C-alpha cells in the first residue's frame, strides 16, 4: 500500500503529471518562440501557453449532439493519463536505472501508441467528417512511421541484447553513449524523423492540417477538453525526445551538472524538431507513408546492417 502511494505520488507529481506538464508548457513556449524568431517575429510571452490553457479551462464546453458523448469526453482524458504513465515510467527508470523490468521498452512503445489512438478516438467519436478524415490520416501516418521507428529501436535492443530500458542506460554508462557508433547515429536520424511524425509537426502534421481539414480530430473540441488535448501534445513533446535520449544518448541524470547536460541534450533534439518544422511544407499522406516505408525504412535497415557489422 505504501508502495502504491509512492507510485501515485510519482504519477501525479515528479516525473509524472505536474513535472511533465509544466516542462511541456515551457517547451511549447520554446517551440513558439523559436518558430517566431525563424519567421522574424517576436513571439509570445513566456507564460503564454499557461494563459492559453487556463483560458481554455474556463471556457464553455460544447458537445455536439451527434457525438458519442462518453467516448468524446473519455478520449482526451485517456490520452493524457497514458502520457503521464509514460512519463512516470521513463522518469523512474532514468532516475534509477536499476529499477527496471525486462521488456519495459515494449510497454513504452505500446503506451506511445495510446496518445495517437486517443486523438483518433476523439476524431471518430466527434461525428464530424473532418474529424474522421483527420483521424483516418492519423491511422495511416501511424502505420507509416511505426515500421522504421521499430527498426531503429530494435537496432538498439540487439546492440545491447536487452529490451530493458534500465539495462540500455546502464550499458551506455559502461560502454559510452550509443551515438558514438555510426550505426546508432543513422538509427537516431531515423528516429528523429519518426519523432517528427509522432509529435505531429510539419511536414507530418497531416492529420490536423489546419488549412485542409481544419485541425481534423480537434475540430469539435472546445474549452476544457481542448485544453487537455493541448496539454497532452505539449507533454508528448517532453516524453518522446526523453525516450530517444534515454536509449540513444545515455539517459538523463538528475544530479549536479547532469541536470544541465540533460536539458542541453533535450534542447538539441527539440531544436532539431523545430528547425525541420519550420523549413518544410506539409506533405501528402500517401507521400508520407511512401517516404516512411521506402527511404526511411531503407536507412533504418542500413543502420541495422551496420550494427551487425560491428560499427
Amino acid at each position, binding site marked *: 500500500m505504501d508502495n502504491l502511494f509512492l507510485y501515485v505520488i510519482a504519477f501525479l507529481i515528479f516525473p509524472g503529471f505536474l513535472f511533465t506538464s509544466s516542462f511541456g508548457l515551457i517547451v511549447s513556449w520554446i517551440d513558439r518562440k523559436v518558430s517566431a524568431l525563424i519567421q522574424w517575429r517576436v513571439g509570445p510571452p513566456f507564460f503564454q501557453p499557461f494563459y492559453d490553457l487556463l483560458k481554455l479551462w474556463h471556457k464553455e*464546453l460544447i458537445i455536439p449532439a451527434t457525438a458519442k458523448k462518453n467516448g468524446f469526453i473519455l478520449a482526451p482524458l485517456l490520452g493524457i*493519463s497514458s502520457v503521464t*504513465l509514460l512519463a512516470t515510467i521513463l522518469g523512474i527508470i532514468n532516475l534509477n536505472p536499476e529499477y527496471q523490468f525486462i521488456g*519495459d521498452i515494449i510497454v513504452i512503445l505500446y503506451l506511445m501508441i495510446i496518445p495517437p489512438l486517443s486523438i483518433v478516438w476523439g476524431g471518430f467519436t466527434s461525428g464530424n467528417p473532418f474529424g474522421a478524415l483527420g483521424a483516418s490520416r492519423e491511422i495511416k501516418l501511424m502505420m507509416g512511421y511505426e515500421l522504421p521507428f521499430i527498426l531503429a529501436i530494435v537496432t538498439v535492443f540487439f546492440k545491447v541484447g536487452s529490451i530493458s530500458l534500465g539495462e540500455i542506460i546502464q550499458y551506455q554508462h559502461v560502454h559510452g553513449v550509443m551515438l558514438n557508433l555510426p550505426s546508432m547515429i543513422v538509427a537516431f536520424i531515423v528516429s528523429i524523423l519518426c519523432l517528427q511524425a509522432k509529435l505531429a509537426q510539419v511536414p507530418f502534421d497531416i492529420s490536423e492540417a489546419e488549412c485542409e481539414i481544419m485541425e481534423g480530430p480537434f475540430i469539435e473540441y472546445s474549452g476544457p477538453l481542448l485544453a487537455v488535448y493541448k496539454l497532452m501534445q505539449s507533454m508528448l513533446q517532453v516524453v518522446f525526445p526523453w525516450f530517444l535520449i534515454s536509449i540513444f544518448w545515455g539517459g538523463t541524470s538528475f544530479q549536479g551538472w547532469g541536470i544541465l547536460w540533460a536539458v542541453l541534450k533535450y534542447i538539441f533534439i527539440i531544436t532539431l524538431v523545430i528547425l525541420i518544422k519550420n523549413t518544410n511544407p506539409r506533405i501528402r*499522406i500517401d507521400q508520407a507513408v511512401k517516404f516512411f516505408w521506402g527511404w526511411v525504412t531503407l536507412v533504418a535497415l542500413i543502420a541495422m546492417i551496420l550494427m551487425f557489422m560491428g560499427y
Partner: protein
Amino acid sequence: MNLLILFYIPAITAAITLLLSRRIKYLQEIISFAGSLVFLNYALRAFSLRDQFLKISWFNISFIDFSLDFRLYHFSKFLLIFLGLFTLLTVLYSAGYFRQRKISRFYFPFISLTLSSATAIVLANNFFVLLVAWELVTLLLFFLIAMGEGKPAAMAAGKAFAILGFTDVALLLAVIALPIAYNTWIITDLKILVGNPLSVAIYVLMFTAAIAKAGAIPLHSWIPPAAVHGPLPAVAFLPASLDKLLGVYLFARITLDVFEFPIDSGLNMMIMIIGGATILGGVLMQIMQSELKSLLSYCAITQVGYILLGIGSGHPIGIAGGIFHMLNHAIYKSCLFFSVGAVEDRTKTTQLDKLGGLATSMPVTFMACAVAALSVSGIPPFNGFVSKWMIYQSLVDGRSISSMLFLVIAMFGSALTLASFLKLLYGTFLGQHQPSEKSADPAIQFNANRDATWTMRIPMITLALLCIIFGLFASYPIKQFIAPVIGLETAGITASISIGTALWNPTLATTLIIIGLLIGFLVYYFSRFKVREVETLFIGGEKFDLENEKLFASKFFEFIERTKILGGFVREGGKGIFDIYNISSDLGLIGVNVLKKLHDGILSTYLSWCIIGLGVLCFILMVM
C-alpha cells in the same frame, strides 16, 4: 472421476438433441446448454485432479495396438475448461442468433458432437484416437459451415473440407508411419529424435495438419469463405476458437513432447518463417477488407503467425507466450465474431459501408467489440498485449538478425492490426448513422435501434471481461495454465517474465491510469463547466445533409492499392492468386487436360499405356 464421462456428456446431449425437432422452441437450445454446463462443471473438477492415464483395450493387428489411450494432464486440463466455456457461450449465443433465423435441426447436436470429439483430441494419448477425432472435427466443420445460406456456403464448406481433408491425409500418413517406424503410436511413449528423413517427413506431415487446422499461410485460404458464408456462431465456435486451440495444441504437443530436435535443425527457422509470412500476408489482406467477417477471418490468420513465432522461437517464454496467445486469441476472436454477429442480427448486413453509428444504439456490443479489438491489437492492459509481449521478448533473446526481422514484422503487424480494427470500429459503431430509408428492399430492415438480446450479450460480456482479466491479472492464467505445460517451475517463469514482481505490473499501471481518469472525472465533475449541447456540427458553417458527409471506412487504406509492389500484392491476393486451393485446382485442371488427351478412346493407345505401365512396374520391382 472417470475420464470417459467427459465424452459421454456431450455425446448424450448430441443424441438427445438429435431426436428433438426444431418445432418446439428453445428445447434443443436448453438441452445443449445444460449439457455444456455439466461438461464445464466436470472440466473444472478435472482441473484439480491428478494427472492420470486411461487405457481401454480393443484389438491388435500384429504389432499395431488399436487400444484407446487417454491421458489427463495440465495442457488437456486447461484446454478442457476453455472447450467447455466456448461451447457454453456458443450455444447461448446461438439461442439468440437463431431466434428468428432458420437453422438445420442438426446444428445443436453437431455442436455437442464437436465438443465431444475435441475432448477426444485433447485427451488422446494415442495418435490413432487423435486421428479419428481429428477427422471427425473436420467432418463436423464441413457440415456446420454447409448449414449457411445457399450455394456459397456449400462451396465454402467444400473448400474447407478439401484443404483440411488433404492435410488430414497427411496426418493419416504420418500416423500410419509411426507404428511401422517406431513400433508405437502412444504419445507419451514416443520420443523421436529428428534426424533421419523419415522422422522429418513424419514431423512435416503432422505439422502440415496442425497449421492447416490453425489456418497459417499457405493453408489458410479455407477460413475467409467459411467465415463469410457459414452460420456465424459456428464460425465463432470452430474456425475462430476451437480449430485454433486444437491446431496449436497438436502443433505444440508434437513440437514440445513427441519430437526432439537437434539444436541446429533449422526447423525453428522454418516455423518462424511461416509465422512471419502469416503475419505479414494476413495483416496486409486484413487491412484491405471491407466486409466485417472476412476482415475478422484474415485477422484470425494473422494471429496464428504470432503463435508460430512464439513457439518457433524455442525459448520458454516464447512458447509460454505462444500458448497464452492461442488462448487469448480464441477469447477475443470469438468475442469479435459474436459482436459482428450481433450487428448482423440487427442490421442484416456486414458490409462496412452500409453500417455506421451503432455505438449509441448498441452500447454493449460496441464496448465488447472495442475491448476485443484493442486486445487483438495488443494495446496494454488487455490480454493480447501480455502474450505478444512475451513473444517479443523471446525474439529479442534470440539475438540474431533473423529474429530481429521477425520482431519488427511482429510489431509492425500489430500496428497494422490496430489500423484495421480502428477502421472496423469507425465503420461499424462510430461515424454517421446509416439512413434507414435507403433500404428499398423490405427484406433488409434496419432494426438497429436496440442492442442484441441478452442471450447474445452475455457471451460477449463474458469474453470481453476475460480479455480484461487475463490482461490485468496475467500472472494467474500463466501460473495456472501455461507454466505447467512447458514444464517450467511457476516461480521460475514468473521471475523470468517478471509479471507482477517488478515495476511493470499491468495491475499497477492500470490502477495509475484509472486514478488519472478518476481525477480527470472528478475535476470535470466538480469544476462545473458550462456544458452546452449543440445540435449541429461545424462543417464550414453550411448546413449539410449529414448522410452525404459520411466518410466510408472501406476506403481508408485505398492508397496502399495505388502503390506499385505492395498494391499489386494486395490486389492479386484479393483475387485469390495465393490461394493454395485455386493453385492446386488449376494444376489439377492441367492434369485432367493431359489425361483427356491420352484418353482418346483408341484401343491401341490404352494397350500401349498398359504395356508401358507394366514395364515401369517390372523395372521398379527388379531393380529396387
